């Protein structure tokens, strides 16, 4: 883009920064006034310092031990963020990987729909978090119950949207494809599946959002690593500055996942009419 984006003009940036800056100033004044116990409300400066410490490596650099890059990435936060991201991706892959074929089958075939729909309607309203006791009973502690819970969180949004996507395929595409001689398999893979992608991707976005909520909760209960585990651990030591630093990191990771999904969306739907930027 050669033209200046009006969203990033100096005036717009100032306007956008006004409320956040005021909020941080108010926060700083409150926490340093002595009216509030710093354990309850740490100052923003303390949070930023703690966040920085959380990001940096804990051990001093030793060339004999590891490369510089490995050392630079050895901080606690990056390890936690990686652990959480790994669980989200794995759980989402399992959940969406099961939901997609089932959704395609249910959307495309009324008999299969009639067989599975009652069970899905019974299971769908159960929040994934309600599966926690069962998950621990079945899988013990560690990654397996977390991945199970995340998979459940991702499963239903992808399933429902895939069914809707297949059912909403415009009949004109089906007629055109039949006229060109398309058989059942070609019809499914080259016409129905791409025509349903906008719906499926919308479901995937909701699904990964749910997966991200569930990962934080499951880490507070079933695992000894990850961002969710870290902020709960910090509470035991009354490190409120680290809790907030951890929350901030969770927000950043969520934002990164959302940007990634958006990019994927825009690439896969570059043919789609009415797509904004």
């Amino acid at each position: 883009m050669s033209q200046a984006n009006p969203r990033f003009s100096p005036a717009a940036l100032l306007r956008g920064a006004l409320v956040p800056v005021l909020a941080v100033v108010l926060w700083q004044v409150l926490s340093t006034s002595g009216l509030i116990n710093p354990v309850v409300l740490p100052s923003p400066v303390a949070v930023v310092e703690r966040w920085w410490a959380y990001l940096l490596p804990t051990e001093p650099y030793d060339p004999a031990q590891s490369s510089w890059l490995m050392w630079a990435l050895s901080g606690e936060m990056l390890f936690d963020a990686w652990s959480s991201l790994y669980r989200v991706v794995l759980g989402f892959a399992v959940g969406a990987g099961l939901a997609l074929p089932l959704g395609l089958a249910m959307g495309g075939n009324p008999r299969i729909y009639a067989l599975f729909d009652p069970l899905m309607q019974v299971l769908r309203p159960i929040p994934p978090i309600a599966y926690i006791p069962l998950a621990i009973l079945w899988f013990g502690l560690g990654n397996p119950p977390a991945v199970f819970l995340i998979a459940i969180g991702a499963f239903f949004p992808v399933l429902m949207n895939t069914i809707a996507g297949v059912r909403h395929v415009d009949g004109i595409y089906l007629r055109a494809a039949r006229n060109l001689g398309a058989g059942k398999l070609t019809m499914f893979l080259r016409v129905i599946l791409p025509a349903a992608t906008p719906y499926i991707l919308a479901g995937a976005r909701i699904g990964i959002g749910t997966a991200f909520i569930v990962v934080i909760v499951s880490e507070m209960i079933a695992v000894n690593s990850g961002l969710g585990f870290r902020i709960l651990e910090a509470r035991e030591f009354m490190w409120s500055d680290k809790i907030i630093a951890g929350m901030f990191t969770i927000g950043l990771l969520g934002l990164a996942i959302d940007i990634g999904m958006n990019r994927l969306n825009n690439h896969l739907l570059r043919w789609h009419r009415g797509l904004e930027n």
Partner: protein
Amino acid sequence: MTPMLKTVADTVPAADAAPVQIRIRGVEKTFAVGAQKIVALQDIDLDIRKGEFVCLLGPSGCGKSTLLNAVAGFQPPTKGTVAVDGRSITEPGPDRGMVFQEYALFPWMTVAQNVAFGLEIKGMSKADIASRVEWLLQKLHLQDFRNRFPKDLSGGMRQRVAIARVLALDSPILLMDEPFGALDALTRRTLQDELLRIWEEVGKTILFVTHSIEESIYLADRIIVMTYRPGTIKRDVVVDMPRPRDGSAPEFNRLKRELSQMVMEEQQRFSQDEIRSVTAD
């Protein structure tokens, strides 16, 4: 009726006339709309010869698209038969390529991919597909748009792609359902001329649905005027003016006047029906 209007019955087919390619016999089609039974087509007998350009003309609701869909194999008739080259039609197939008014291009495929799709289904080799697609893109002046998606094309360009897509199949019959109905007048004329040029070059049988009288006279060898509910054949008119046809020629206008009269009679029955259905509500 004016005697100067030539119908098929008047013209004795020459001994070397092309064989009948589409044979429609006793076709009837009824739809149930609520408790009402609508007779969309009744007693349709029609023979279309190989290489003929035939227009189905009539107002909305006269069953012209229904008849086309029966030939395409999308909606089998309630009664009667449609046979192509002696074989009865039971389902859609690439031997009867269809061009839809709504283009029906696959929006997730580029122009070239849309044109290639039918050939891939046929199982043609990659190299053959590439050269055939290239030839069609040139023929329809689409070569600069090969990697565009349909959303980035104008209506006229989209319809060129749709025509290229069915021409790719090299089917002996082209079925066209008001293909230029949504286009502006100038684009429409350009595409009509290109369609005639291609038809003369590749020699296909074309069954073309339209409600434009001028379009039917400009294009067709024969115009089948249809009645409004039940849809029957009102007149089967032969147009034997040389092409390219001049829309201002006296002969063109005489035909236009006569066809207008016939179509307007049906149009009036359609309007009265519409008013009745509104006041009945």
